[in-house]
């Protein structure tokens, strides 16, 4: 399956209509129907009361000020004040409700993005660069965040205010109202026609920011290489390049975003002019009053000011939509590792069975070709062979990090695809080639992914480590379980990381333990200690050791040569050696 996000965004750029994106976005808050209703009711009351104001002012002018009836003026001023106090209360309710909905929507959105990330298979992470992925998810949710927490309330309030003012304009005097609103129609057509272009510009600008981040991330994270090879100039040049590109794209997007605002102001002014000229003409013909003209001018402001605000927010809105598009594309990915049903009776007596398994990475050459082998419970196997031969791929298929392209893989006689991830994880312990730590303490890292031991006190945990013969390894850390570690820590050596990964896997007591070059950077004395620990594992534990160092695989019951996509059973260590020494199996 194609999980490449960058190819995807090019494909959909500017294509998804606003309404369709919005509908998807609104789908997120389907649970808030009651709150949305209340919020909208409050918005309507508030907008209605605010809109009634100018009309009352105009009415007062015509009927009391022009007739010099001051008590009447005061009377209406009182009514107006009471109205505005009511509006204040509804306004508060509106803000509270809408703001709350926005925050909860954002909350749900973030959660679904994150759980989607967790749900997707490893393929997804291989097809997208980590730096790009990180910047993308952080930036995009931030853009949506900004819109939701800052602009949404204004946006909706303005929209309703504008609609109300428009309706009142038309009701007071239809011809004058139509004339006053005609510039808005032109605006609407203009906005609609340049929106896709606007979005494209914003997309491009977001994308160039992504590559800028990726560049910085890559260079700074690997700064020692930059220094050791004296490529500081190179870093500057590459950076200046992406920075220049980002500048170009951002200026284009910025100017595009700024185009609408002056046009809107202009339209608003033209609207006022139309009202003034046409209104006075109507008054001369006796079809209109001065008071109504003053109200009308106020309504024009009530119509065009929100419109201008919407225009100002429109760019934000477009940006949020562009970001949302990218997010929803991510959300549309499905995990391609689905569960299949397999009662699995008597298909194979072996613990692990590979039957004619072939595998190739997406858009890549075949890594394994029609591979078949069986592993029995409780035995120790070694996979050896030159680098790039397919050892890690074989292990990854056994742990179902990927599905095979062809052929079947059985675990305990059942199709590996029929196990739930939870069942599978509890059976298989896989120590990866690249050890990874999470920010926290040694304890956090040892217990990572181990709910059974999570609640143990340090004392109990030490006891548990003792039982698994792991306790001595803790001496490698100056503050034992509580030694702090960083994900990108330089304070901890690669060997120490591998020790933590080893402890993490053993403590989970897996039925199948795969060690993928798991001790490559550990000194040989400690390695012997680890070997002793492995030998003390329960009889039934099946061990698969991937290595190229012969001493680590000496005790294997059976050795497989993995090379050029083929796996050859070579018998015991002695037999394998004889095979190597005498027939010189060429790799």
């Amino acid at each position: 399956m194609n999980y490449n996000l960058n190819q995807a965004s090019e494909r959909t750029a500017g294509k998804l209509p606003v309404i369709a994106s919005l509908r998807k976005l609104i789908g997120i808050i389907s649970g808030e129907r009651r709150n949305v209703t209340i919020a909208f009711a409050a918005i309507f009351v508030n907008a209605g009361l605010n809109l009634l104001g100018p009309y009352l002012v105009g009415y007062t002018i015509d009927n009391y000020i022009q007739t010099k009836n001051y008590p009447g003026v005061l009377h209406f001023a009182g009514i107006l004040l009471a109205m505005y106090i009511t509006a204040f209360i509804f306004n508060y309710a509106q803000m509270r409700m809408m703001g709350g909905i926005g925050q909860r929507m954002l909350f749900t959105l973030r959660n679904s993005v994150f759980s989607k990330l967790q749900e997707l298979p490893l393929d997804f992470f291989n097809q997208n660069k980590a730096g790009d992925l990180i910047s993308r998810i952080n930036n995009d949710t931030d853009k949506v965040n900004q819109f939701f927490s800052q602009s949404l309330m204004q946006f909706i309030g303005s929209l309703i205010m504008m609609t109300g003012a428009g309706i009142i304009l038309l009701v007071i005097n239809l011809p004058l109202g139509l004339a006053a609103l005609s510039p808005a129609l032109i605006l609407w057509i203009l906005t609609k026609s340049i929106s896709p272009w606007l979005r494209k510009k914003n997309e491009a600008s977001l994308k160039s920011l992504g590559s800028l981040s990726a560049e910085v991330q890559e260079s700074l994270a690997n700064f020692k290489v930059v220094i050791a090879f004296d490529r500081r100039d190179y870093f500057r040049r590459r950076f200046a390049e992406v920075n220049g590109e980002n500048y170009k794209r951002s200026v284009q997007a910025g100017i595009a975003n700024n185009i609408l605002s002056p046009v809107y102001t202009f339209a608003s002014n033209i609207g006022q002019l139309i009202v003034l000229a046409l209104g006075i003409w109507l008054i001369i013909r006796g079809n209109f009053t001065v008071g109504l003209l003053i109200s009308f001018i106020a309504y024009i402001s009530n119509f065009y000011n929100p419109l201008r605000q919407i225009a100002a927010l429109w760019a934000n809105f477009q940006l949020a939509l562009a970001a949302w598009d990218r997010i929803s594309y991510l959300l549309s990915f499905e995990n391609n590792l689905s569960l299949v049903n397999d009662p699995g009776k008597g298909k194979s007596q072996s613990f692990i069975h590979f039957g004619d398994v072939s595998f190739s990475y997406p858009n890549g050459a075949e890594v394994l070709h029609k591979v078949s082998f069986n592993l029995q419970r409780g035995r120790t196997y070694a996979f050896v062979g030159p680098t790039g031969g397919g050892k890690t791929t074989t292990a990854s298929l056994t742990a179902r990090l990927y599905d095979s392209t062809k052929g079947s893989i059985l675990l305990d006689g059942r199709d590996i695809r029929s196990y739930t991830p939870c069942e599978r994880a509890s059976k298989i312990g896989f120590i990866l080639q690249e050890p990874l730590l999470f920010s926290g303490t040694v304890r956090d890292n040892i217990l990572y992914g181990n709910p059974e031991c999570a609640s143990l006190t340090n004392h109990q945990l030490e006891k548990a480590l003792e039982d698994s013969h792991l306790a001595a390894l803790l001496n490698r850390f100056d503050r034992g379980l509580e030694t702090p570690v960083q994900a990108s820590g330089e304070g901890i050596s690669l060997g120490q990381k591998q020790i933590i990964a080893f402890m993490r896997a053993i403590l989970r007591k897996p039925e199948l333990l795969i060690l993928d070059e798991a001790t490559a950077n550990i000194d040989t004395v400690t390695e012997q200690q680890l070997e002793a620990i492995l030998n003390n594992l329960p009889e039934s534990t099946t061990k698969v050791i991937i290595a190229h160092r012969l001493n680590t695989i000496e005790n294997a019951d059976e050795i497989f040569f993995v090379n050029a996509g083929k796996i050859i059973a070579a018998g015991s260590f002695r037999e394998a050696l004889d095979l190597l020494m005498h027939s010189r199996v060429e790799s």
Partner: protein
Amino acid sequence: MVRPKQSSEAGPKQNGGLFSVLGPYAGIVTVLIIMALAGSAINLFIPKIIARGIDAFSANSFRAGTVIIEFLIAAAGIFVFTFFQGVLQTLTAERVAKDLRNKMAEKLSHQTYSFILNSNPSKLLTNMTSDMDSVKMFVAQAFVTIISSLFVIIGASVLLIMINWKLALAVLVIVPVLTTAFIIVFRKVKVIFKKSREVIDALNRIINESILGAALIRVLNSQQPENQKFLEKNMESRDLGLTIVRLFSVLVPIIMFVSNAAVVIILALGGHYVVAGSLTLGNFAAFNSYLVMLIFPVMMIGFMSNIIAAATASYGRIRQVLDAPPPAERGTVSSGIRGDISVKNISLSYEKKPVLKDVSFSVRAGSNCAIIGPTAAGKSLLLSLIANIITPDSGGIEFDGIPIENYSVQSMHKQTGYVFQDSVIFNLSLRENIAFSDNVTEESLRKAIETAELTDFIESLPERLDTVVAERGTSLSGGQKQRIMLARALAINPKILLLDDFTSRVDRKTENKILCNIRNNYPEMTLVSVTQKIAPVRHFEQIILLMEGEIIATGKHKDLLESSPEYIQIYSSQKSTHHYEL
């Protein structure tokens, strides 16, 4: 430490810092201010034109032509000025950001490795993106908006006072009321904003680690706890968001209500003046229009003060990077070296924990030296010191008897090839990854590739040397990556080659071939190899046994077997496989 400004007293100095961003762009900024002021000035005139129209009509002297022409000129003027203001704002903001970013990159490129580590690459990335955004926001919006808002507030007030000072004063009461409301709410919001930024940073960290650890999470099926971790922080973020909403839910209705109250004042008091004949109906209408004009800038200044506070904090963080002292002056010796290394009394601590203690040894030019020892003995750090990527707390290193500080940086790194323990592959073509340094000739590239036994592998690739290898590509195995790293180091034809646990991911046969190739193709090179395995380095001129930051023993394999019990222990842990030497 830069904190967001809390009171106006603390403001000026920090703001001076932020405003200094605009210094180099004084010309364009001046034009920008003129545009903004011109636009606002014309804006102030429009209600005036309307008022005159209404009054002229009431006095039966209405001339449609003049009003329309005046009005159209004003509208066109506003359009032109605001349009160019928008363009200029964008240009200035992006220019400022671009130049600042380049300055940062320039600065960072001269810094030491430990500076980059201490400043934390991901924090530096934030400085270049989010922090830069908030400075951009200041340049593009806050700065000009505040100036033109002040102008409009003052202008509208003056015009109101000129029309009718008593009514004007009654209406202008709203300005201090609104300002106070803003100050009170924003002071509270600022604290929460800061907290919510921290929570978002935490959210991002969880996302980042879950991406980098994707494989591990899937192996352990720990998606659920990851989700749980995320959910907790996300809830925190939501609750902070809701607190901000609560504060704004008070502020916005107050603004609306206060401005509406002003409408009531105009109606009641202004109505009185119109009835009494001291105010014309047109000016009454103008009062209403100016009121609308007044409220908007007051709100704007409130919002912009927030942007300025955020930008001040961001700019402070950027300045920290820009103002960091440059690394110590380097020497100018640029002569070619023979390759004698001498390490003298080196000590190094990491987070107050000594990791190397008074280490001394020397390596003769063209000889082979191995450093062995248990995990976390300080072997890799020792190599980094020799490569001059980090500097020791005390003691020194000499090449050919001259302290390495005396060499120019270029000549130092040009003559030292360093193969790191972890594989660093850039998202570039293989050619660029291997010929990573500038002065690599085709010939030395070819030799390096051959020596690293990569020729067959590269031949098998669709685009050979021009194949782009992805950052975390699936196309390369651990061993292939490590050999690419070796080729990269050899391609610069180094006098000294530092190998850090190079053979850990390369199979025995390839390893032997490579070591043999190195000896044949680069006979004069000094080789220092950190390793776990004794067998491949048995014949080396010198083996150094390092434990817990101290040299325990040093000598040839044969000598060490007689003199060092620790060495014997390590040797015997590997010995069982010795007679199977392939």
